[in-house]
């Protein structure tokens, strides 16, 4: 009996939804909090958020960030603070995408996008400089030729900041505690525990059900 029951299970698979997808033509949607390659953000007036404080470099467990701050030129300041990030480099051969730098940054200057599919042909290219990390004039991450960006992946660049901003204090959940971003304005907070009772899923995060069914939706 055992053998034939087994065949039944196999046969039934024909009528179940297909769970595999045709990568890389087709891609699974990414979670809101997903950690990808970094971006350096700007304020809505176009000023850079980074103040060159080097907190991110100090906390990085992989020691892959190199920052040097410089005093803002009085006639043409780069950031609203006293100083700005003059050199900013991240070595992607070392980065483990833990996002401690994002948590440490006091101005939300460094956050992570959803992009992780990029490759280099030499070690030098793996070091992203400020040019590559800084968002473009419309606030969008730069789409570099060797990166595989898909639609919508540049939208939620600061999701992990929003997730960790209350730092465990329930009273601070759902409170906006971050500055506006060029091109996106002030991002809405997560509902957190306030949304615990109402069952509705948020705007455009993935659901496990969607993934279990192969991400076709």
């Amino acid at each position: 009996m055992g053998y034939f029951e087994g065949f039944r299970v196999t046969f039934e698979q024909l009528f179940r939804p297909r769970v595999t997808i045709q990568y890389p033509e087709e891609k699974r949607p990414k979670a809101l909090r997903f950690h990808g390659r970094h971006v350096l953000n700007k304020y809505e007036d176009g000023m850079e958020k980074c103040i060159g404080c080097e907190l991110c470099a100090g906390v990085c467990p992989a020691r892959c960030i190199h920052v040097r701050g410089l005093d803002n030129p009085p006639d043409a300041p780069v950031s609203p603070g006293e100083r700005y990030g003059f050199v900013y480099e991240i070595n992607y051969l070392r980065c483990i995408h833990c996002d401690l730098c994002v948590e440490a940054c006091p101005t939300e200057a460094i956050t992570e996008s959803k992009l992780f599919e990029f490759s280099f042909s030499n070690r030098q290219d793996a070091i992203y400089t400020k040019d590559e990390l800084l968002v473009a004039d419309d606030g969008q991450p730069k789409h570099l030729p060797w990166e595989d960006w898909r639609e919508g992946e540049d939208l939620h660049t600061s999701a992990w900041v929003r997730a960790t901003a209350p730092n465990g204090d329930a009273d601070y959940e759902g409170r906006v505690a971050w500055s506006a971003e060029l091109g996106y304005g002030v991002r809405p907070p997560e509902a957190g525990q306030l949304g615990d009772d109402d069952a509705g899923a948020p705007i455009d995060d993935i659901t496990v059900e969607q993934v279990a069914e192969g991400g076709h939706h």
Partner: protein
Amino acid sequence: MAKTVDLIAETAEPSQEMQPRSLTSGVEALREEGAVLRIPNLPEGVDELPTEDETMIINMGPQHPSTHGVLRLMLELDGETVLRSKPIIGYLHTGMEKTGEDLTYLQGTTNTTRMDYLAPLFNELVFSLAAEKLLDVEIPERATWIRMLMTELNRISSHFTFLATNGMDLGASTMMIFGFREREALLAFFEKCSGLRMNHNYIRVGGVAADLPDGWRDDVLFLLDDLPERLIDYDTLFTGQTIWQERSQGVGVLTADEAIALGVTGPILRATGVPWDLRRTMPYLFYDQVDFDVVVGTYGDTFDRYAIRVNEIRESIRIVRQILERLPKGDYRVQDKKVTPPPRARIDESMEALIHHFKLFTEGLKVPEGEVYVPIESPRGELGCYMVSDGTAKPYRMHIRGPSFVNLQALPHLMHGGLVADAVAVISSCDPVLGEVDR
């Protein structure tokens, strides 16, 4: 004095080698019959000990699909029968314990999480529990329940990976696809919570990094409804399947006494009938408040080790259901200025908060002097963290007792007298994760 030196010289077989019989002497030679445990009589099916020219020493691995990572086995074979065997490890050694001494307690979890990469949340948990014991802080209830929720789901995903690889090693490729399919859904949940599929750095000293994401309850409920249904397929295809039973029953048998003598823990120990599960025997988190059964086996063979994991998935699902009911609202990180950075909004409001933020992210949190050992039940057995603090922001010593490492020493014993083909089944049923063995 001289005699002691002799003995040492006699037993010193190079650790990365297995010598032919003529060169093996003393204690080492005794092992030809029973690996680590010495059994006085000949294994069944072997009439008399073969002479050297009848046996062959071969290497299995380090690059072998069934060795689960880079494990190398030296096997002495008499035809198809395994006589002596020696697991050779260290290929994945990256000095993570030493690295741990150079990272602050805040950064530490990014490192430990990479040890047992199939159960990263357990590594984070054991590290955090050890540091918290030294800090002597009270973790908020919500944080503890979230930790239980996440680690139980992680236990499920780890066991599904076991089912996948165990099936593949025994030629049931359906099981591999099934196992990874189920795991994928669980990883999607972890990704949604922590932003990463594995190596999450989600459980931190003092609580958890972020609250559960919006819509998490629906996701967990979906998993709780979906997984038990899928487990029925596993039972039909494998547990109740004659082919599977014949392939795995009676293979690689370990008795309870042997298992205890070898220091084996986790499903391998429970398969021998010993109800030793740290969640029950030495409860941590809130395991004393939830209702679950410790699954034990009878025969201690490959089949029992498989069946235990399938049923542990069911028990974990039961625990998760209870967590869903009990999860309270409230803080999810200890609100101690010296341990947890201030909420983002406080940085703009208060100079003091800003200073704490800077201090925590540059110097890290200081942990009082002392030493602790904290054990938890990982999917593979007793995962322990021994931590010594000298009062600075970095551990003076951080040692991990990896269950895979200890369980590995049962291998020569389990494989002894069996066939080479069974060796594959045995390795796989021990579910070693080499990242944790070598660290």
